[in-house]
């Protein structure tokens, strides 16, 4: 049977029951728009978790001394020239930072806290959250700056403020405790209070002097694009023999697990929404088919093959889905762009931070996701039409004509 005739009849049959098919179409539009919006939110969360993990002093790839992760301290160190550069042939990187990071105790007149004391070169910290965090007071000037910057949360805990001196105790390279006083240059405001209470920064030269060794405990490298991660890792493994070269998924397994879960969540959400919708679609199509069973019987009586009847029902379903998917995607993307400034989740900041996310969630629509939604929806439309089509051809022409 000519496809043009099938199309013509199918489309006119859709228009024949405008209200019923209109309501079905509206349900498809709403479901698809909701899936597009929700998936964009999930992708936004996913990207946010990954960015937060990478910016949280991790980078895409980090070089550490063996055993540092189990027993972090200045004893697990390695030497690196100050003018180190990524090896030739490695993918182009966004930047790198050489740091000293040691566990320490910080004390004010009012309190004592355990912290991570990090020596940084401010010129290299464009790759971490330190460069974008809101700052009260001054940032560190250079690698030899002997002042400290602490998080606002820690300042509140220690009941201290700008310009005040704090005492920090850590273990030196010789295994003996070292104690020094540091003046607070600035208070940083990170998205997560956990980070604010945990990281204290000073110039890397100042910290090396305090621990008594011109060494580093980590080299953090950030890429322009994640896909280059494995090539960079391979290049670094060849250069840093005897050291551990780890990517952010290995260093932040919880964030990596959430990242993978988000991929699955996109599909789970789709099938929950569209799966429920399919039942409605099947019901609508069965009703439509049974209402015109006589007509379908006549078509078969005059010579239409069963496969053409099946094709007609499939086309009707597919056409409904096609229109619904197109409008739904447009509506979903419009909602995504309307939320371009992001969704403020600061009311639930503690819960949000526990997932490694920031409090401002921006939806991120991905072309691949939208295409997947479109293709899967159309596929579901075809699947949904098979049962009604089977019902249509199960009835023999003569039996259909008698109804």
């Amino acid at each position, binding site marked *: 049977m*000519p496809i043009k005739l099938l199309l013509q*009849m199918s489309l006119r049959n859709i228009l*024949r029951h405008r209200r019923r098919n209109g309501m079905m179409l509206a349900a498809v539009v709403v479901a698809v728009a909701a899936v597009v919006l929700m998936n964009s939110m999930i992708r936004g969360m996913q990207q946010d978790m990954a960015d937060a993990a990478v910016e949280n002093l991790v980078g895409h790839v980090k070089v550490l001394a063996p055993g540092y992760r189990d027993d972090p301290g200045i004893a697990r160190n390695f030497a690196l020239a100050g003018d180190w550069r990524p090896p030739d042939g490695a993918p182009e990187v966004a930047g790198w930072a050489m740091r000293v990071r040691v566990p320490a105790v910080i004390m004010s007149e009012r309190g004592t806290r355990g912290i991570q004391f990090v020596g940084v070169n401010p010129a290299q910290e464009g790759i971490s959250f330190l460069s974008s965090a809101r700052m009260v007071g001054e940032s560190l000037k250079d690698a030899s700056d002997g002042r400290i910057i602490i998080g606002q949360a820690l300042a509140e805990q220690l009941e201290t403020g700008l310009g005040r001196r704090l005492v920090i105790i850590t273990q030196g390279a010789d295994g003996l405790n070292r104690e020094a006083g540091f003046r607070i240059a600035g208070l940083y405001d990170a998205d997560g209070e956990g980070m604010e209470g945990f990281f204290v920064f000073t110039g890397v030269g100042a910290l090396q002097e305090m621990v008594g060794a011109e060494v580093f405990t980590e080299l953090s490298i950030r890429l322009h694009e994640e896909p280059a991660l494995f090539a960079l890792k391979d290049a670094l493994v060849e250069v840093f023999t005897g050291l551990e070269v780890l990517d952010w998924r290995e260093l932040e397994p919880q964030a990596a697990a959430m990242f993978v879960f988000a991929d699955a969540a996109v599909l789970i959400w789709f099938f929950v929404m569209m799966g429920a919708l399919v039942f409605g679609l099947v019901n609508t199509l069965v009703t439509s088919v049974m209402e015109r069973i006589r007509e379908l019987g006549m*078509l078969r009586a005059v010579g239409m093959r069963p496969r053409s009847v099946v094709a007609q029902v499939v086309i009707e379903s597919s056409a409904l889905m096609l229109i619904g998917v197109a409008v739904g995607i447009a509506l979903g993307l419009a909602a995504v762009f309307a939320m371009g400034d992001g969704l403020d989740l600061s009311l639930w900041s503690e819960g949000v931070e526990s997932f490694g996310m920031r409090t401002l969630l921006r939806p991120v629509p991905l072309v691949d996701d939208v295409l997947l939604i479109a293709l899967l929806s159309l596929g579901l439309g075809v699947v949904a039409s098979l049962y009604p089509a089977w019902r249509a051809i199960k009835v023999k*022409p003569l039996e259909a004509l008698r109804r």
Partner: protein
Amino acid sequence: MSDVANRRTAHVVDCAGVSRTYQEDAVPVQALRDVDFQFSRGEFASLSGPSGSGKSTLLNLIGGLDRADEGAIAVDGVALNRLSESELSDLRLRRIGFVFQSYNLIPVLSAQENVEFIMQLQGVARGERAEQAVECLASLGIAELARRRPGELSGGQQQRVAIARAIVTDPVLLLADEPSANLDSGTTEELLKLLRRLNHERGISILTATHDPMVMSYAKRRVVLRDGAIVEDSAH
């Protein structure tokens, strides 16, 4: 059906020893008993009889819409009991025209599109299709209704469109099941004059199942069934 497809026989329909039993609420009901019936080319015959006599059953068996339990039926030389469902579909499409009691036009297509529909199934080219459809509608006096949909037509007009759809491809046999059941007497007479003209002028073989004495009076041959058997077969 290829070996017999093109064989031309004197009888357009040949039924020999045909029986058909239905199950109604698990009770067997014999609708036809050992029926022999031949129908020649160019004939116009009516199958009549009381309800349950088997006339519609015989018509449906001849039209390939149902299968006999026993006996053989040949249409235009083709033995129906040897055909698969798809071959039966093809036979109905190319050799038989159907006119139903309730017209059974496709409501979403216009009158002309309904007539063209069968030709589309046959794969006739678009230009030729439209030309034949218009010509056929004109020959039945309803050319001006070509663009109207069935819902915009009277019962008589719809039945004319149904006849146009049935004859536009020059079938060897036109089967009409109670064609006048939903028509008033005036419209029925017009319809019967039309069928008689088609039978005379175009030599179309017409077999109709009917209760209507007026339809019987227009047919040249009257076949009466009772309790699943032919009890009278007369020409007039």
